């Protein structure tokens, strides 16, 4: 490359070392939504101040932040069981779900028998069963984990089964022609092909297991963020509710983000976007 073209290239770029930093235009997809959220918060604050909204109805963001700071130790303590239960039920649901999906893939008899029933279960309001788990397992962490696993298990089985089934038929045929064993064709073809579907099921499961744990804590608990939220609402401590919701949202987003990151990592390993 000649010096001239190198210079003209450099002139094309935005000055001040923009090569290292993303330009404003590239940041637009991040900045715009963040700015919108910020504007909403400002409006909220303004409305609370101008119209003197009672604290019980709607505390201003600054008040919520203050409350959050004040009760943060309590909230973090309550967050521990909620997080642990959510993670436990997510892991159980993912493991059991993918396991069952593998069984369904390799046993046509079981598939024909179970799959339609699984899909039917997907449609019924499983939340209604939450109190039954309390009857069965008592007011314990196990009962919440069991309920939450039950609620988040179905999306994983169904999407994983669909994913295994949808593996590219001609690649599978290629495996057969190479006399690959079932295990080889599973490991080398079916599993990588099913990864996007498995992860989309797991992402749903992650949200569902947090929801399941919260519902469990609503109806039967002496600890946890769900319990705390209900407790605060019975005492009309709206700012405390918002603070607890904030912590819960952070946990929910972090757990979801962890699954999404794992997905990126695994998919990159398998050379797919």
């Amino acid at each position, binding site marked *: 490359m000649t010096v001239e073209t190198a210079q003209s290239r450099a002139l*094309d*770029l*935005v000055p001040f070392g923009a*090569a290292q930093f993303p*330009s404003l*235009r590239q940041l637009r997809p991040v900045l715009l939504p963040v700015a919108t959220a910020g504007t909403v918060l400002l409006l909220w604050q303004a409305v609370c101040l101008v119209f003197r909204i009672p604290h019980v109805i709607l505390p201003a963001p600054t008040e919520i932040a203050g409350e959050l700071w004040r009760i943060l130790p309590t909230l973090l303590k309550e967050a521990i069981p909620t997080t642990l239960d959510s993670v436990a039920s997510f892991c159980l649901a993912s493991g059991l779900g993918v396991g069952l999906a593998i069984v369904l893939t390799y046993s046509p008899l079981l598939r024909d028998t179970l799959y339609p029933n699984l899909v039917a279960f997907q449609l019924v309001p499983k939340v209604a069963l939450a109190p039954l788990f309390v009857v069965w397992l008592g007011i314990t962490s196990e009962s919440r984990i069991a309920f939450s696993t039950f609620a988040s298990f179905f999306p994983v089985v169904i999407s994983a089964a669909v994913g295994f089934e949808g593996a590219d038929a001609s690649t599978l045929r290629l495996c057969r022609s190479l006399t690959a064993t079932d295990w080889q064709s599973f490991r080398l073809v079916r599993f990588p092909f099913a990864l996007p579907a498995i992860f989309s099921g797991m992402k749903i499961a992650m949200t569902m297991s947090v929801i399941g744990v919260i519902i469990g804590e609503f109806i039967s608990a002496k600890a946890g963020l769900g319990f705390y939220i209900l407790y605060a609402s019975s005492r009309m401590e709206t700012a405390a509710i918002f603070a607890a919701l904030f912590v819960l949202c952070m946990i929910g987003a972090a757990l979801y983000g962890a699954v999404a990151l794992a997905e990126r990592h695994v998919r990159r390993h398998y050379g797919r976007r």
Partner: protein
Amino acid sequence: MPDSFVQNRVPAAATTQCVEVIEVSKIYHGGTQNAVEAVSSVNFSVPHGQFVAILGPSGCGKSTLLMMVGGLEAVTTGRIEVDGSPMAGPRTSIGIMFQDSTLLPWKSALDNVLFPIKVLKRPVQEYHDNAHALLDRVGLYGFAQKKPHELSGGMRQRVSICRALVYEPNVLLMDEPFSALDAITRDEMNGLLLDLWQQYTKTALFVTHSIREAVMLADRVLVMTQRPATIVEDLTIPFARPREMSIGESREFNEICGHLRERIEHSHFEGRR
């Protein structure tokens, strides 16, 4: 605006140029790190009623050029005039055919043909006969009420030819309209296009990868280089009209094809420098 097919044949108009492309360049993402120069100082003009084919390697900027002529992409530098006035945006006197048939899946073949009429808010009833006649003309008699998924790929492409002709544009831009079809259907479509052309002569720009297709259909062939695209060859095809598909077997035809192939290979080489 001369809307009917017949007016295009008026000899007075034949002396002026229909499409003029003057020193046109196109740079995508100009001024950023990933700037792409797709088209570089292209010049050519097309008289009224001429059929021009554009040949070039994949990714060289043919579609970009065509979209600029159609007013769907802005030029970075230079000027494009159609019917004597500079292009500033899409016009109804220009019809475009895309690589895929882009039919609306929920509309019948007839309604798909009438789609432009509806968009242009012309009286749909008046064009009914015309649309039916076009469908019959391309051999889709009796398929007017079928939906796209009930038609084969070739049939869908025929519907989209009818759709491009029904509102009687002066200029027809075609971007590899038959490249998704198999060889036999493609020959058939070429024959059909040749027939239609003989009936409704209008100015056309036709992008293709197939040398034979270009020579068979066009009055003139332009050859483009690797990106950034420039024109390296402007060849007039001497065959008289009406043409028969059988000219494809003649020696002259094959000599022209050979010459063009040589030019393209040469330009490939030049493009890499």
